[in-house]
């Protein structure tokens, strides 16, 4: 059995009574590019900081390269790279001094790779980090994290605030490492990771709503449209896998989140809407899938919370 690069089990982090991460269980296969996506405040950075042993979990467990996350320090970091948007670099150093300083920490440091990355990223060696642009600093951080060929590279919002050119350069640098390095990166910008992620996990308000291969995800979501008799009455209950159901006159629209085949779905529709005709299926871009998921999750959560509030109000009055 292959040891996953990252495995978490019911990983939870509470700040007081607030749940930042709610029993997250996921597994990242070696060699994969796992994109952790979700809106701001979803818990992506918290999850990464927990697995990197930057802060302790309230409960649950995490393993990196077979090691418990609580042991991710010292020599264990020889095989793990980490770059974060919020990371503080020793800004008094030049790029050259930074690399000179980092090199002796890593037995596997590859000077040829370092030189190649320096060339690819066109990074000035003599400028102090504090005088460099954000993009340049991020490039320096990438070189410092890639040059020892880590088995696992963890990136927390690495492309936030970068111009498209720098972002492409960095992504290109990462693509060249795919295979030898497992990539685990978080982002709230879906477009930037859609092109190269092999797996994706979606966090919303601390909960991992799904975690699967990109192709599986794309295949199981479909936008469905069909026409019905305007006078027909809708069924009392819709399947839970139908998201964002809308009806405008004779036009019905929804997103199927467990799409298998057109025939199966057509039969499912006809069972509920006998007058259904002109059924059309359209694949969805990743961005639309996430937006649909986010809206559905928030709507159901709001519905749940208003229900709880109503119950508690009634209880109070009683």
């Amino acid at each position, binding site marked *: 059995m292959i040891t996953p690069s990252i495995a978490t089990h019911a990983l939870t982090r509470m700040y007081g009574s607030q749940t930042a991460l709610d029993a997250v269980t996921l597994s990242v296969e070696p060699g994969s590019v796992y994109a952790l996506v979700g809106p701001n405040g979803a818990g992506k950075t918290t999850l990464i900081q927990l697995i990197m042993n930057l802060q302790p979990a309230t409960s649950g467990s995490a393993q990196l390269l077979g090691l418990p996350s609580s042991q991710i320090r*010292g*020599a264990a970091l020889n095989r793990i790279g980490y770059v974060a948007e919020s*990371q503080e670099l*020793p800004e008094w150093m030049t790029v050259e001094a930074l690399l000179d300083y980092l090199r002796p920490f890593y037995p596997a440091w590859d000077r040829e790779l370092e030189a190649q990355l320096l060339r690819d990223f066109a990074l000035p060696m003599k400028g102090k980090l504090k005088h460099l642009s954000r993009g340049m600093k991020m490039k320096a951080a990438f070189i410092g994290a890639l040059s020892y060929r880590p088995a696992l590279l963890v990136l927390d919002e690495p492309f936030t605030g970068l111009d498209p050119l720098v972002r492409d350069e960095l992504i290109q640098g990462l693509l060249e490492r795919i295979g030898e390095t497992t990539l685990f990166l978080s982002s709230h910008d879906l477009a930037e990771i859609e092109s190269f992620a092999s797996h994706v996990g979606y966090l919303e308000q601390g909960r991992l709503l799904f975690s699967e291969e990109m192709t599986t995800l794309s295949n199981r979501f479909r936008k469905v449209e069909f026409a019905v008799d305007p006078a027909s009455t809708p069924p009392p209950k819709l399947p839970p896998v139908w998201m964002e159901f809308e009806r405008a006159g004779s036009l019905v629209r929804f997103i199927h989140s467990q799409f298998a085949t057109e025939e199966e779905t057509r039969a499912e529709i006809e069972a509920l809407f006998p007058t259904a005709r002109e059924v059309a299926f359209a694949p969805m871009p990743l961005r639309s899938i996430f937006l649909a998921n986010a809206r559905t999750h928030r709507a159901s959560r709001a519905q749940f919370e208003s229900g709880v509030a109503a119950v508690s109000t009634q209880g109070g009055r009683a």
Partner: protein
Amino acid sequence: MNQIVHIFRKDTRHCWPEIVLSLAITAALVCIYPLRWLALPGRDALGTPSMNAAVLGTMLTGLVVVSWVMLIARIVHAESLVGVSQFWLTRPYEWKSLLAAKLIFIAVFLYLPLIVAQWLLLYMAGLNSASTIPGLLFNLLLITGLLVLPLVAIATVTENFFRMAFALLGAVLMGVAALVAITVQGYSNGYNNIWNRLLLLAMDNLAAPAHSLTSIGHHKQLLFALLFATVSGAVVLLQYARRKTWLCRAILLALPIAVAIGGMVKAHYALSGQALIDHDYPKLSTDAAPIRLAYGVDEKHQIIVFRGKNNSGALIAGARIPLHVSEIAEGTALIVDHSIVTLEAADGFRWSTEGSIPTLQKYDLPGRRVRDDYDVPQVFFEIPYALYERIKTGPLTVRIMLALTQLQATNSVHATLPTHDVAVPGFGLCEVETAGYGTLQCRSALREPQLTDVSASWSTTPCAVAEDELLLNHGIQWPGQLDREPAEFGIVPIQFAEVTYDWAYQDRKFWMDHLCTGAPITFTQYKYTGRSQVNLTISNFYFPPEDPASNIDHSGGMVH
């Protein structure tokens, strides 16, 4: 090991401006401080030489400490242990190597320059010898426990220099507020309450509150240093190994709170007054007592009563009861640590000074030395004026108890004051400061010297008059202390003792005396031999009428 050296080199490169600044301040201290005693050209240029050198030296000593705070903050915060966004946290640092690199930095750029500077200062003061090495090491231990480790600990729980400075400022303000509260409350809330006792402990020995009023044999510096070193060291280890910032902050915050609570508990349960004295000052039989007291009024021994106000502004009557002191063995001296006077009237009225705050100028011996051939010994006390009004018609029974520390002379050095340094083995080096009235300026290595009786012939006329016109007067001073810790906590390893007789109160007049070159001088060192209490009961005592000419405010009980 490679990682230690690697981090150390990085820190050295990073902090070189601060290192240079710290070394420059230390070098300036070494250059300027000796002007306190060296007759160098620059000394005159500074104006009043020793005073200006002392002020400059004190400022530079403070700056050395400030530069240390800066260096410690810089190197610890270079790999800050607070927060989650630091670059180094996700690099393969071994915490032991990181901590070792920081400690080596402190050893190389704080301790090494300090040791060199201290040795140079001792050398320039003429006090360097192999015998000072244990003291230097002891001082280094004190500096580590009381200054460096606490600073490192605070740095490990703060994010940057400003937060660290803020924490230090808070700690200083807290300490000052506590001291002010204890002092104000201790003096203004009457006697024998918790504040009053806390004040006694703070003045005497807070770490190991003595059952005694002098802290002979107590290692208060060492105890504090070990306490602070243990707590700070634990915090530093815990932070580097586990980064438990809030726990470590709580531990550091708990330390002064624990000391304060410990002090209050100790103060609450501490013995006071007669019980305290009975515990530490055994009552000896008349034959074994180191002194014999008697009472008798004659031309020389007169009771004086005057009216005045005490420290709280309350109207009091002050009384001085003269004593006849005899049978002090040759070579023996006595410190009166405390005295209790009890007044009993025939109608059962009883009043005692037992709960009063004693004057704890432990070694102010001219005012405390009980010898019949030196002025007139007398016990002084204050009584609320209303009570005095009630009992002044007498007769009274007066009970006097003196708590004594006994000293034995060990060796004497006789010299004639030259114009330059005179070396006194076991004491230090002394020179006559000819500016002003002429005082003896003595310096010693690392700590005040052992308690020493400095007897000299002082002139009541200026030294400039012809030698045969000098009006010589015998004077005694008691510099030094009885504690025997090998060093006083400090950056500068030289202690100064000024032996002066400029202002002497004698025969109800103030005299300004002069110490002139050529005068004979004797240094007699004393060692602690024991403690005891002596008691005297005076029956049928009557207060005389008040003497308005004696209305001088004093407080506490002491023998003159």
